[in-house]
């Protein structure tokens, strides 16, 4: 009856519409509530499961957490910079904790590259080189997967599935497999990151190609150009800025990915970070974290600036 009082001011049709709207919103509320309830149950279950299967329980480990944070404070602030630039430490007692100068990589008699900068360069090279390899192969594959260029469903589907598998295949397995074949070194990391990048960039690329303006291609078709010529002169010029933008976006992601791959045996700075955190070397850890932080911010800023120049603001839509 309370509902009816609402309808007083309406005409008959208005009241009908109002009633429909009330019903719809009531149903909607039920669905929202149901969805939230399911989400809540899933979350509680997940948290319980995670806590049960963890090596230490959350509340048991919490006090140690702060101990660990305390352990990560170096003896004095300058230690971090001594570790970063491989300068001798006044606390040097011959242990691995303070042996900063031992990592120096001498170029000439007295000029050296600090260890962490060298390893950071290695990680950056892994990222850049594998992004380039990924772009080359993604570029070659993407035109075969685009609906507007390849009429053959079978070929298109095959290329797309192939790229999906490359993208979803766990990088850690690729890295592990090539570590077993090629032995230690950065090359397994390059291969693992490249293979993943081929899949990821290939997908982004073919979506760009499918959204390309087909007028230029039609013109070339009208004068009898071959498929390669149509792609090269009709499609490539208009998609190239977007390709470069995605290339840079992928580079940002790959800098992170190659750090992680490094930590599981692929060399570079990730491995040093894992070792120094594991052994509780406060100053070394902070030095590496600082270097990584600065590098990642620098790469991100550079890439954002270049992308804005290449394609304007819409490069900052969510990259899917």
């Amino acid at each position, binding site marked *: 009856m309370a509902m009816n009082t609402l309808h007083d001011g309406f005409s008959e049709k208005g009241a009908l519409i109002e009633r429909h709207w009330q019903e719809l919103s009531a149903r909607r509320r039920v669905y929202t509530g149901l969805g939230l309830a399911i989400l809540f149950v899933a979350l509680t279950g997940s948290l319980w499961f995670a806590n049960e*299967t963890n090596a230490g329980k959350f509340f048991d480990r919490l006090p140690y957490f702060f101990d660990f944070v305390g352990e990560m404070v170096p003896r004095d602030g300058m230690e971090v910079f001594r570790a970063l630039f491989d300068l001798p430490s006044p606390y040097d007692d011959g242990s691995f904790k303070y042996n900063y100068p031992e990592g120096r990589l001498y170029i000439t008699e007295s000029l050296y590259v600090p260890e962490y900068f060298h390893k950071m360069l290695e990680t950056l*090279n892994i990222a850049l*080189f594998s992004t380039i390899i990924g772009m080359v192969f993604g570029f070659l594959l993407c035109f075969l997967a685009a609906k507007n260029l390849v009429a053959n469903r079978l070929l298109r589907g095959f290329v797309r599935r192939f790229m999906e598998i490359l993208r*979803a295949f766990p990088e*850690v397995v690729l890295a592990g497999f090539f*570590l*077993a074949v090629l032995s230690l070194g950065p090359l397994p990391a390059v291969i693992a990151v490249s293979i993943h990048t081929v899949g990821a960039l290939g997908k982004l690329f073919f979506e760009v190609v499918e959204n390309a303006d087909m007028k230029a291609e039609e013109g070339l078709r009208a004068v009898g150009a071959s498929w390669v010529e149509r792609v090269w002169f009709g499609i490539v010029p208009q998609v190239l800025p977007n390709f470069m933008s995605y290339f840079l976006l992928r580079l940002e992601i790959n800098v992170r990915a190659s750090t*992680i791959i490094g*930590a599981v045996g692929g060399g570079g700075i990730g491995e040093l970070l894992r070792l120094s955190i594991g052994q509780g070397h406060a100053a070394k850890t902070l030095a590496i974290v600082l270097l990584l932080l600065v590098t990642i911010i620098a790469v991100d800023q550079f890439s954002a600036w270049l992308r804005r120049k290449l394609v304007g603001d819409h490069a900052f839509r969510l990259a899917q």
Partner: protein
Amino acid sequence: MTTLNPAQMDEIAARHPAVFHRSFWQRFRVAIITGGFVLYALYCWWFFAIGHVLGTANWNIAGTYLADWVSYEVRPQVSIAPDGAMKLTYPRFSPLGPNAEPDWVEIETGTMTRTLPNAGAANSARKPAAMGFMGTGGAVGGSAAAAEAVAAATTSEEEVVKRARITLNASTTVDVVPGSVTVQHSGETLVVNLSDMTAEGTLPVWATQKAPGGKITLAFGFAGWGEIEADDVSIRRRFLGWANFLFDTNSPFHGKSTSEVLSLIWSGERIDPKQSNLSLAWDNILYNSEWQHLDVWTKLLQTIVMAFVGTLFAMLLAFPLAFLAARNITRSWISNQLTKRLFDFLRSVDMLIWALFFTRAFGPGPLAGMSAIFFTDTGTLGKLYSEALENIDDKQREGVKSVGASPMAVQRYGVLPQVMPLFASQALYFWESNTRSATIIGAVGAGGIGLKLWEAMRTNSDWENVAYMVLLILIVVFVFDGISNALRSRLMGKPAH
């Protein structure tokens, strides 16, 4: 058809300077950028020593490892004692289980009188090969040491293998009799005399002997391979498929056909009086010692849970913070900057650093991975959310404000309807992509299937387990990809692809 005279051409050129007088950079940028990439690739070739690494890589091993993904080897081994007695054995963890008698290995047995040195004597000094024969011949009156050895030896009747014939495929057999081995492969025959390790005639291409008198290695392609030594012939036959995927060799159901297992479960007598056959079978599958199904599934669930909880918490925290960070919603420079720099910090301290950090803090397990994903994604989602909020249409807010709504109501009815689908879609996208990245941070100890994968790969002998886990991961990723895409395209009202 009109033709242009030079004056008209000049005129056209003058009218379109942008086309005909482009700057150096405009004309050559593609060539310059491509050249730069090529130069950089050359530099990387040197920096990573790619030529050297590829040259020294062991590509045969790569083939074997790849074959291990989808096949397994059974390794019968014929050991030949100096007196000619042969014995057929399988390694301890053979996929066939103990006491296997596969039909592709034919053996002829017989009794033989053997004189063996006692265990003690055998340990004190290894006798030369001829000593055993001397002993049976009754060579009395030798040196004192020889007499002692004979006294220490015992004579017995034993059943030994007289001949072993191992068939690898239709065209490949290895026939072992005391003193010689006959190998047939694709129409060629190799006879090896074991006493001096020489082959009759020249070696076929599939057999190699590195040093005269040394061991001979046989390669039969996918069918398997083998090694012939003077006292030992070991063969590895490769079978396609995963061995003992359901029941390991200790299980009472091992080696039975599907119908036998089903009838045992359905109506057979209880094998273990304490539990029904069905629950015994299920237990045996879960705790299969080779495939460790329960452990793999638990770890996979951990990975999924890590991604789910991490992303959900990140979304819940990023949501209110994004309102503080958006310039047009919170008009305070300090709070904008503080939250934005916090997002940058969380995002730029890599997921790896957070993962290692929390692994040290919480111990290995999903809590560490979950926290790592939560921290990183709070930064990423917060940044995306605040950018989305800064780009909203202000008219709706103004409309709600103009009718005198409270600040909360302005956000709820003026802002949320515009951004909610986008927020949810982005959270879903990160949920899906975190399901992938959770695998790899697991490998540094942050819980989930990553560590299990990494351990399986480290031994280089469990590639079939790696293949199994990869298959499970691929299925999970594809399923979640599908769910997330379907939800997102419903939210955004258009296909997300």
